[in-house]
């Protein structure tokens, strides 16, 4: 993305963003971690300007004033392109969602759609959303598991409490009451093929919900549950310090990660031959497909990743499968073709992208 002030969505080269490497892949430490199936960590910081109503109840003129204030703040911070979401073509919105730069479901505010803005940095790792539930949502993505030290370093410095809606007892005041307090949410994207194969996903979900975490498949990805891709979210952090939030979240997630590792190892031990066959079939299927639907990509990609975690395939293939999960999504394919493609064309194009990526990975 270029370094600019406010841009018109039509002026931006979306292909440039679509062709960027995926922000959370390609880091060696993530592959070497004991839990390579933790794909990424995403942190959101929610803030609202003091003295303004929240976006949901603000009139269009107040929304415009909020947007002005937010854009001025972003420009002062030397941000990158800021663009109006309502100006973006559907394939661009989809592409942004595939890159996890937009919420899974946006909240409709009739008559105020034009005041929603997005600001993305050059590497598409950090972004800021304006007027989407809260006045400003600052987001950042990290590959794999974020360490406690990095988390504290990044988020410990308090920002100006005068600028934001703040209460001494409750902390940052937000439109969604579950964002209240530190105004911060930690989320991890996990790939749980062990649970999926052992049919233990309902138990995993119940366990996480009982511990107060959100546990859901990535709703905009068709076939996400079958492929074992889930988002785990920290919830209700008011009254807790930053280290306590991180510790509670990681402590709650830990049993699931340990169980997933056990299930994968058990699968490898007890059904080694079947598993190896499925992994090889998936690799072959992806490398030779002429037509490939998105759910099939996720399903075969899941075996590819599992094979990489367990050493059946080159570990690099787990990262390639994740890269393809994003870049072979219909939004990315639509942006490269300048329109949302009909399903048949899209499936053919996807197969070609996947074939080429796997071919070049051999070299």
């Amino acid at each position, binding site marked *: 993305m270029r370094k600019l002030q406010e841009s018109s969505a039509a002026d931006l080269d979306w292909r440039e963003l679509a062709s960027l490497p995926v922000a959370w892949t390609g880091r060696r430490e993530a592959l070497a971690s004991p839990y390579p199936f933790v794909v990424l960590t995403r942190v959101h910081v929610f803030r*609202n300007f*003091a003295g*303004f*109503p*929240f976006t*949901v*109840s603000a*009139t*269009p*003129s107040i929304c415009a004033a909020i947007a002005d204030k937010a854009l001025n703040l972003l420009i002062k911070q030397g941000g990158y392109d800021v663009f109006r979401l309502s100006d973006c073509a559907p394939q661009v919105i989809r592409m942004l969602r595939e890159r996890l730069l937009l919420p899974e479901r946006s*909240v409709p505010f*009739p*008559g105020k759609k034009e005041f929603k803005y997005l600001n993305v940095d050059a590497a598409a790792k950090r972004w800021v959303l304006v007027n989407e*539930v809260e006045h400003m949502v600052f987001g950042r993505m990290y590959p794999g598991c974020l360490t406690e030290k990095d988390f504290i370093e990044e988020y410990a410095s308090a920002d100006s409490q005068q600028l934001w*809606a703040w*209460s*001494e*007892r*409750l902390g940052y*005041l*937000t*439109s*969604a*009451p*579950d964002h*209240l*307090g530190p105004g911060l949410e930690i989320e991890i994207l996990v790939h749980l093929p062990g649970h999926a194969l052992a049919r233990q996903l309902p138990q995993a979900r119940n366990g996480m919900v009982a511990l*107060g975490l959100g546990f859901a498949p990535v709703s905009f990805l068709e076939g996400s549950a079958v492929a074992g891709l889930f988002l785990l979210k920290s*919830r*209700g*952090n*008011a*009254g*807790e310090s930053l280290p*306590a939030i991180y510790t509670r979240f990681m402590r709650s997630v830990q049993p699931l990660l340990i169980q997933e590792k056990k299930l994968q190892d058990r699968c490898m031990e007890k059904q080694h031959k079947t598993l190896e066959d499925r992994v090889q079939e998936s690799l072959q299927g992806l490398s030779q497909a002429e037509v490939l639907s998105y759910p099939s990509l996720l399903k075969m990609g899941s075996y590819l990743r599992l094979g990489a975690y367990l050493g059946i395939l080159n570990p690099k293939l787990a990262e390639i499968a994740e890269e393809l999960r994003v870049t072979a999504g219909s939004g990315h394919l639509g942006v490269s073709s300048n329109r949302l493609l009909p399903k048949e064309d899209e499936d053919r194009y996807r197969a070609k992208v996947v074939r080429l990526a796997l071919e070049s990975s051999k070299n």
Partner: protein
Amino acid sequence: MCTQCGFTLGEYRTRGLLGCTHCYASFGEALQADLLWMHHALKFSEATPDFPELDSTSDPENLARWRIMLAEALKVENYGEAARLRLLIQNAEASRKFGGGLGLA
């Protein structure tokens, strides 16, 4: 109903969102129970917000602001918001006349 932004408890229940910072004080015990349920570490005493006094509903400045907001809402044909603002104005006017509300809050 929040006397500052006009959001009702019903709207909060439907959308899961609050209209302004004063809603935290306006919705009182109903919201307090939700906050204690959502935020495990929050203590009962902390879930009572420490806001400055809510603006009086009969404050003439508020009335003038709501009237402008009502006109704007009608202009953009946002009838839901207009209806809410109208109720808010009626309540405030009654409060000025009789020293009490219409029981809409």
